[in-house]
């Protein structure tokens, strides 16, 4: 499966996302924000970072970059799209996902290994998890507080579009402890924590077994590869 990773000016985690795709068994395809070509990819990752220096609002300028018109069309046609951190902010600004992300309620940038509960395993990027599974992946953001009006929150909760929820600590003041959501179809997923940083032993979060051995993030990428194989079969 060919998975495109878009690089915007100021993207930081594009290389890690490409690596995660390869570790999951996919082919990583580097895409450039200024192009109008998706290079025939089967899925897309919008990586973390600080596109356009977070000017205007986090993700706002990137959401209007040339490649986004193709990504919006592809996402609406069902292509799996994962937005991680700044990528989540871009998806929200592009109106592919509802709500908004605001400055952490405590005012500080936060970087920690974050425990999450997988709430919905029917999305393209979470199908390899068990419902209710608890996972740990890194979180690092300054503006990660998820907000939406009450009607939107009720819809997200009612329709099962809350895909991931913070456990034990709400690190940024997100409403309902929401860490990540999906669109109604389940092909577009955005979350603030970083699955791509927990895909290889030696470089992931600490576990009870060994330091830096956590690879819970790998399942995001194997999920999308697996679900595309099933769709083809």
């Amino acid at each position: 499966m060919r998975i495109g990773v878009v690089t915007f000016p100021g993207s930081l985690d594009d290389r890690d996302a490409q690596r995660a795709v390869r570790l999951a068994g996919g082919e990583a395809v580097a895409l450039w924000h200024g192009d109008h070509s998706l290079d025939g990819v089967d899925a897309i990752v919008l990586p973390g970072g600080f596109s356009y220096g977070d000017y205007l609002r986090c993700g706002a300028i990137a959401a209007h970059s040339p490649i986004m018109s193709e990504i919006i069309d592809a996402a609406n046609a069902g292509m799996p799209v994962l937005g991680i951190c700044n990528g989540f902010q871009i998806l929200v600004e592009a109106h592919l996902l509802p709500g908004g992300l605001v400055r952490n309620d405590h005012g500080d940038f936060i970087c920690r290994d974050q425990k999450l509960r997988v709430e919905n395993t029917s999305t393209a990027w979470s199908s390899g998890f068990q419902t209710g599974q608890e996972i740990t992946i890194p979180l690092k953001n300054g503006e990660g507080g998820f907000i939406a009006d009450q009607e939107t929150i009720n819809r997200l909760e009612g329709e099962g579009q809350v895909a991931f929820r913070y456990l034990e600590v709400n690190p940024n003041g997100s409403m309902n402890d929401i860490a990540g959501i999906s669109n109604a179809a389940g092909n577009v997923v955005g979350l603030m924590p970083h699955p791509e940083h927990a895909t290889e032993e030696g470089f992931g979060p600490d576990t009870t077994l060994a330091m830096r051995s956590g690879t819970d993030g790998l399942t995001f990428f194997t999920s999308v590869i697996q679900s595309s194989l099933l769709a083809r079969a």
Partner: protein
Amino acid sequence: MPKAVLLDPQGKAVTGALHRLGKEHISEVRIGKRFELTVDEVTPELLEEARVLGEEIFANLVIEDVVSVTAL
């Protein structure tokens, strides 16, 4: 402007600084953004265009409000 219900950490920090300067009678500071667009001549159509840009690009109405669009 950030919506009134949202925390405005910048405004909160400035409020704290004012209080340390003895300005306790100022109970709250909120900080927003101002965009100045330059055109040859302001027409009602351009003002309307600025209004649309304000709501669609300059502000995210989920988290912010456009409070004023005027010709300078």
